């Protein structure tokens, strides 16, 4: 059986609960990767800052559906209408977006110029002037939206830390908080590095991602809590190995959920934004895609390993680790074997080959699990 297990590919092993990936042991690698990404992002932020959309820096934009017009035609028309240095983009297959800043004009002059550009664009597109969408944003608007979002973010962080502390434990709250901070920093960094445009939609999307990342983390921690009450009590596993087992147990779920979450978001980005050309969807899709990958990564590679670092400083888990290590033998359980151990009638020694540590023969001291 041992040989047969070896031959199985990763997916089948995942499907059958035979994975023993050492997430916790290689935590230094994960922490280094994340730190590198975050430092690079923050460096870029310090040097280049953000590519802010008009909602943040103020400005004006116009949009019209013009399937048969060219960028050159549109540029010529709006410049003739009096726009200096406009940005003209074609979104999707037929939406034209013109951006410029009229905030140094007086209010009535702004209205006049806006209407002139509307007429010019409608003429190029061959439609009625009511078919042109306009947007004008004063220079202070974005700031107030961001402030409210930051307020929401801080309250959310506090509420989450309180909730997890109460429902699970403070150290889990801290680990989950760091994972969320990680996602926030990674997303911000990626936006600065790649020069993606930051809009209020991006801010919404980032808030969602934090919720999602946390949701992911909570599912893993829920399992850790379960195992703390059962597997850990046997005294045969260090806290780290127990968390690692929990992660392997929830791995299939983590991967499935992340995939299921990312599929619709990719659909927003590709179908909604690039094929059909809806700007708002593009803003959401991009931030959600970046954030979901980061969120899926952080709940596996940051939150749980960090929890182990925090918990193994507690003397009882430190002692447990020292004791088990002095015995020179560590249990590496696959989710499937852990399930067998916990099952009724599992009070027998099981010989299990576990993935990477497949040469180790494990004498599991199984006891009947007490369920609360």
């Amino acid at each position, binding site marked *: *059986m041992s040989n047969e297990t070896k031959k199985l590919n990763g997916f089948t092993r995942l*499907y*059958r*609960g035979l994975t023993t990936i050492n997430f916790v042991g290689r935590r230094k690698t994960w922490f280094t990767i994340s730190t590198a990404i975050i430092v690079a992002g923050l460096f870029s932020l310090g040097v280049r800052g953000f590519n802010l959309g008009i909602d943040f820096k103020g400005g004006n934009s116009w*949009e019209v559906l013009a399937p048969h017009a060219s960028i050159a035609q549109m540029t010529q028309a709006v410049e003739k209408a009096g726009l200096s240095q406009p940005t003209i983009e074609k979104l999707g297959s037929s*939406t034209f977006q013109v951006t410029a800043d009229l905030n140094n004009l*007086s*209010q*009535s*002059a702004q209205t006049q110029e806006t209407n002139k550009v*509307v007429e010019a664009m409608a003429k190029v597109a061959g*439609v009625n002037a*009511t078919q042109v*969408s*306009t947007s004008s*944003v*004063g220079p*202070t608007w974005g700031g*107030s939206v961001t402030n*409210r*979002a930051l*307020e*929401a973010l801080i309250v959310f962080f506090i509420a989450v830390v309180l*909730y997890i502390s109460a*429902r699970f434990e403070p150290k889990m709250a801290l680990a989950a908080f760091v994972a969320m901070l990680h996602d926030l920093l990674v997303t911000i960094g990626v936006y600065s590095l790649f020069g993606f445009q930051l809009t*209020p*939609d991006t*801010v*919404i999307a980032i808030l*969602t991602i*934090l*919720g*999602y990342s*946390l*949701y992911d983390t*909570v*599912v893993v921690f829920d399992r850790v809590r379960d195992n703390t009450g059962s597997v850990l009590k046997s005294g045969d596993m260090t806290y780290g190995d127990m968390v690692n087992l929990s992660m392997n147990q*929830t791995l*299939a*779920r983590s991967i*499935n959920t992340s995939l*299921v979450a990312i599929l*619709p*978001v*990719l*659909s927003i980005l590709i*179908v*909604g*934004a690039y094929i*059909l050309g*809806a700007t*708002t*969807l593009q803003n*959401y899709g991009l931030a*959600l895609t970046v954030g979901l990958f980061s969120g899926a990564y952080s709940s596996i590679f940051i939150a749980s390993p960090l929890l182990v670092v925090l918990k193994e400083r507690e003397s009882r888990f430190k002692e447990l680790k020292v004791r088990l290590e002095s015995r020179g033998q560590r249990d590496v359980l696959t*989710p499937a074997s852990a*399930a*067998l151990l*916990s099952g009724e009638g599992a009070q027998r020694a099981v010989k299990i080959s576990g993935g990477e540590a497949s040469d180790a023969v494990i004498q599991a001291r199984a006891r009947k699990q007490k*369920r609360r």
Partner: protein
Amino acid sequence: MAAHVGTKKTMVVSLILTLLIAFGSLGATLALGWGPKLGLDLDGGLSVVYKPATKTSQANMQEVVNILTNRVNGLGVSGAQVNLQGKNVVVSAPGVKDARAVLQAVGQTAQLYFRPVLCETTLDKGKLYNVNPTTLPTCDSKYLMTQANLGVTVNSQAVAGFTMNTMSPDPKFGKVASTLPVYDDPQSRVLLPLLGAPTSRYLLGPAQMTGQSIAKAVAQEDTAGAWVVNYTLTGSGSKLWDQVAQANFHQLVAIELDGVIQSAPVIQPTQATFTSFGGTGQISGSFTESSAKNLAIAMQFGALPVRLIPLTTQTISPTLGHSALVAGLGAGLVGLALVMLYAILYYRALGFVILLGLGATAALLWAIISALGHTAFAPSFNLAGVTGLIVSIGITVDSYIVYFERLKDETRAGRSIRTSVDRGFRSAWRTVLAADFVSLLAAVLLYLIAVGDVRGFAFFLGLSTLMDIFMTWYFTRPLVVLLGRRSGQSNSALSMAAGLNSGGSDNE
């Protein structure tokens, strides 16, 4: 240890009821022809956020809201909303065809001023000079619209009931541009155009009265069928107006709103001597129905207690909105299809449970959103909301995944499928509650704190999270448990094992 999470009978009932409610309510909304109340980014329309120019009291801002609401309603725009968000006033009018026309009426945010007309001026072609009001030249005495120069005489033979001299415009102002709104100070003289006739301009003196003296103004047809504006003054306004009118007897008084002269009537031209207005008056002239109505609205509602500065203005064309809706729904459906495909590939028979569950959830959500569209409570369904729903597909499916992975664990432990479905559900339920609570927490906080689109997003995310909890308990639990119990009895085609032949070593 309780062996079951419910009796067979209650579970069959809950399953049937859930499906009936979900698809029944969808059928009902479709039959009623109800649809969601679309946000303006999907339906087209107008949205403006105003900020008070100076610090002002909450009561003043509430008055601003009332005045703007009246203005919007006065234009006959349906479904428009004006409300306070923090210190800002948000005006939104979804579904409006010509959004910029509405914007212009609502955007008349300056105060209404009553100013004496000094003289008429010309408007030359070519380059104009911007002039600060303090350096505006004065009118030549022969062009001044004084009582003597105008020579208003009562004449019952004339159509209007009076005659007056035709005054020629003062050519001195030909090259001077009209006063910019930033210089429109009630204390100083201004040079402004007449509404609807940009080449007729008047030099006006400092304001003698503001719109706050007007209590009410209505556009009406007089006995001859001509449109007039009848107005009523407030108590203190009545006295003030009598003073202003007496000082300007047989002269022109301009009613100015936002740098445009709405009307410049002659005071009591059909009377030989001044008589008190007694708190009411009438403006007649060559009004059309719409110009009379606009003047009435401007007179009654023009007086805002504070000047407003637009922070952000958006007008969205209905066609662009429609294309965004198609994009959003298209993306949602493709996403849903991909997720369903994945669920069936990975979980096989159990995947169909997800399929049916997602279908029922979607039906129920659409029904609820459509029904909420008929209340004032729910935020309108906008692109942010669509995104919220699309994101929630992941959260909904996750509940199934958590449960099914637990099921696998239980069967790996060597338990029968029959026991596994019960045990698995109980541990999965706790996880689902804990995780959904976090999602709800995020949604509620966002809804309470954030502004604008964020609220719509939070609302629909929260709604679908609640739906997930509901469906997990009333749909997934009974269906999977019933299937599990059945598979214990027979090898039916829908045997749970189809999705669960995953017990690691035990199937070798």
